[in-house]
């Protein structure tokens, strides 16, 4: 693809040579190398804990390396802190966005470099320039709207534009698509192309292999803090990259097995929440994985929030095993045997400052009570059992949850709900931002759970995932159910990703 552009100038604009970094007890990076050509999109691949983030933190000035050198624009440099990195032209778009939500789009774009007139803020000029930038990078928002009003994709675009207009030479993107829908990804890719045409190099970290083939020119793979190799994307394939990443070949990351689908356990009838979703009806059977596809903002998570009692619904009925129930709050939902792995593990999944064990046992404390006293031995036994069952990699059960990697945090949230032994498990984006190995583990686990008679609702914005794993697929758009497809239709290729997407968008303009 774009590789042709780079052929003329084989010289590197950035070289990180034999870089090592040790943390107490861990060799995070062991003499790794990364070479970036001007104007290329360079994918950085590896499972969680492979050392990608550590290397990027070194490049953006947050860590200093123990060994190795960094050559940037023909000069050996030492990057002391983040602001120095930005001055040098190296910006990082973080996985967790942190815009100033109550300031305007223009104010966010120009934070720290506001145009001035006689020492005062020149608002007019700022808004004019901001409008210009937004137009250039095709972001359709108003310069004076509050960032709070934007959706995640738009916020991310804003961050990218901010980085790009800082005269960056290198923009690091860490999992930029993890919270975007397919349509939004397309917009992001357009922005990346546009950055590239301005001569900016992009270091692109992603767990979605498919994307690498769409956007990247070259890819470097790390594994366990070691450099494994660099490939020209056009000359390699998915399986080779995956086997480089995991050190073994992965036959199929979607191990869906057919299970016996039994009786109805949950029926939702005409569930409505004013202005959010309307007339949502579906049923769920034991032994079944029910997929929910759609764009972000389609109302899928909102429906689940209502079923779980986090939000109130305006009208409609929920029946559990044929009995109408009223679920007023999550406590009631847990009492009815529903578990909910929410989309946002930092926001409402985990208490990051508390230990792994305390997080696991939080929903089920009343079950390990002996009178009013907590039975800490039972807690430790059951907690350790589920840590093992889900293969949560933690130094100890008492380690703070916040110090685990993203994939392990996700497994921890699932472990917490598994320990509650639910009859119905709702999984909202359970594999977002986690690596291939951990994903496969979660898929296998889902299959095991339904085989044991649990019913699972799987919400995912990753089409291959939701289409490969479900027994039935519901597509939502604009707060309504648009269509329902059977597994057979998907297997027969009658229903393709494109079809699902077009149903989800439904001919109407997506948000």
């Amino acid at each position, binding site marked *: 693809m774009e590789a042709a552009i780079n052929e003329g100038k084989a010289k590197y604009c950035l070289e990180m040579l034999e870089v090592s970094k040790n943390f107490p007890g861990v060799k995070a990076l062991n003499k790794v190398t990364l070479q970036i050509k001007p104007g290329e999109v360079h994918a950085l691949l590896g499972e969680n804990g492979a050392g990608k983030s550590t290397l990027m933190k070194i490049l953006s000035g947050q860590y200093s390396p123990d060994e190795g050198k960094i050559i940037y624009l023909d000069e050996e440099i030492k990057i002391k802190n983040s602001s120095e990195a930005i001055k040098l032209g190296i910006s990082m778009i973080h996985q967790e966005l942190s815009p100033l939500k109550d300031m305007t789009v223009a104010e966010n774009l120009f934070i720290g470099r506001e145009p001035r007139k006689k020492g005062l803020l020149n608002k007019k000029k700022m808004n004019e320039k901001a409008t210009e930038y937004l137009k250039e990078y095709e972001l359709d928002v108003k310069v004076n709207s509050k960032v709070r009003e934007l959706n995640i994709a738009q916020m991310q675009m804003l961050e990218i534009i901010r980085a790009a207009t800082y005269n960056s030479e290198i923009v690091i993107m860490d999992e930029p698509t993890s919270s975007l829908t397919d349509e939004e990804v397309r917009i992001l890719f357009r922005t990346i192309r546009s950055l590239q045409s301005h001569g900016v190099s992009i270091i692109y970290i992603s767990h979605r292999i498919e994307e690498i083939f769409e956007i990247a020119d070259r890819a470097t793979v790390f594994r366990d803090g070691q450099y494994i190799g660099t490939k020209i994307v056009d000359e390699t394939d998915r399986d080779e990259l995956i086997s480089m990443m995991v050190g073994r070949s992965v036959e199929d990351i979607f191990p869906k097995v057919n299970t016996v689908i039994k009786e109805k356990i949950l029926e939702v009838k005409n569930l409505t929440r004013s202005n959010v979703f309307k007339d949502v009806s579906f049923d769920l059977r034991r032994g079944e994985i029910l997929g929910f596809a759609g764009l972000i903002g389609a109302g899928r998570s909102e429906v689940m929030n209502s079923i779980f009692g*986090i939000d109130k619904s305006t009208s409609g009925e929920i029946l559990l095993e044929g009995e109408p129930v009223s679920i007023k709050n*999550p406590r009631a939902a847990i009492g009815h045997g529903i578990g909910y792995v929410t989309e946002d593990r930092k*926001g409402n999944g985990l208490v990051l400052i508390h230990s792994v064990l305390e997080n696991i046992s939080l929903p089920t404390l009343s079950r390990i009570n002996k009178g009013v006293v907590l039975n800490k031995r039972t807690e430790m036994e059951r907690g350790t059992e589920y840590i093992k069952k889900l293969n949560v990699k933690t130094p100890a059960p008492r380690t703070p949850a916040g110090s685990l990697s993203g994939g392990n945090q996700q497994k921890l949230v699932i472990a917490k709900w598994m320990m509650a032994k639910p009859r119905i498990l709702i999984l909202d984006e359970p594999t977002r931002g986690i690596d291939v190995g951990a994903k496969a583990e979660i898929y296998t686990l889902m299959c095991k759970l339904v085989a044991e008679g649990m019913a699972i609702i799987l919400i995912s914005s990753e089409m291959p995932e939701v289409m490969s794993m479900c027994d039935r697929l519901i597509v939502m758009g604009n707060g309504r159910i648009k269509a329902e497809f059977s597994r057979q239709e998907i297997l027969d290729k009658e229903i393709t990703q494109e079809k699902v997407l077009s149903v989800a968008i439904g001919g109407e303009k997506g948000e």
Partner: protein
Amino acid sequence: MNDTKKELFNLKGFITRYGLMIIIIVFVLIMCVVQPAFRTSANMLNILKQVSMNGMIALGMAFVIMTGGIDLSVGSTVAVSTLVAGSVLTMNPDSQMFTIYAVLAALGAGILCGALNGICIAYLKIPPFIVTMGTMTMFRGLGYLYCNGQPYVLKSAFYKVIGQGTVTGLSIPIPAIMLIIAVIIFYFVLNWTKFGRHVLATGGNENAAITAGVNVKKIKIIVYTICGFMAALGGIILGSRINAGNPSLGSGYELDAISAVVIGGASMSGGLCTTLGTVLGIMTLGLINNSLNMLGVSSYFQMVFQGMIIIIAVALDARSRQEK
């Protein structure tokens, strides 16, 4: 509490975590050597008595701070409880029964004050700082109205025993015994009950707590009620020590209580608090004030010093957390 046990063995972790405490212990040892009056048993008992009252309030405050809240109204609650107790005692100063009534009435008043805070915070969704800033003024105003601005001078011999008595046989003041019991209950609730976990989870991540089925509203109301109750206990100890019920008592106590909790390593954003830390925080303030008095340091300078201690404590704590 396994955590603390482990950290006692982990010397480096202990030093970073309780660096300030070590400095204070050294400081106390020095005081014992240079100032003979400091190490007299009379003085030690005096410190214990002083610490008991503030300690009660601080333990209640610790629960509130664990949920990420704050209670500025405890000083006013102290005043209200001395007045309620005072008014009951004045009815029949010589009756033992009336002492019990007085104590119950004062505790009841504290519970009401705390519950009012909790209900406003949980149901009206007003930030705790604002609610308790309002009730701080309100409760004190109610106190003045209640007694018509006239303090009660108490003559009850029974009531006096609570604040001034000692356990027969031993010379340990009754308030100190009360504090020790309160600390044991605090430790138990914090570490060995579902309620304690739910309090910490509410402060650690409220949304995660709600999703995990914690009744956050109930937790908040209980926590502020406990805080009001503990403030009333503090008020009873104070009132019985000085034989008075006075609407101007207790002013500024909220800051002492918050200081003690913060020095003890609790996070103001909630979710983190240990029993040992809180007790050490309570002791620190008492010891520092007493020793500076002994050394003849002016009370003006003492204020400066106390302020500095708070900032240093929080700075040390922030550093040890970063290192983790």
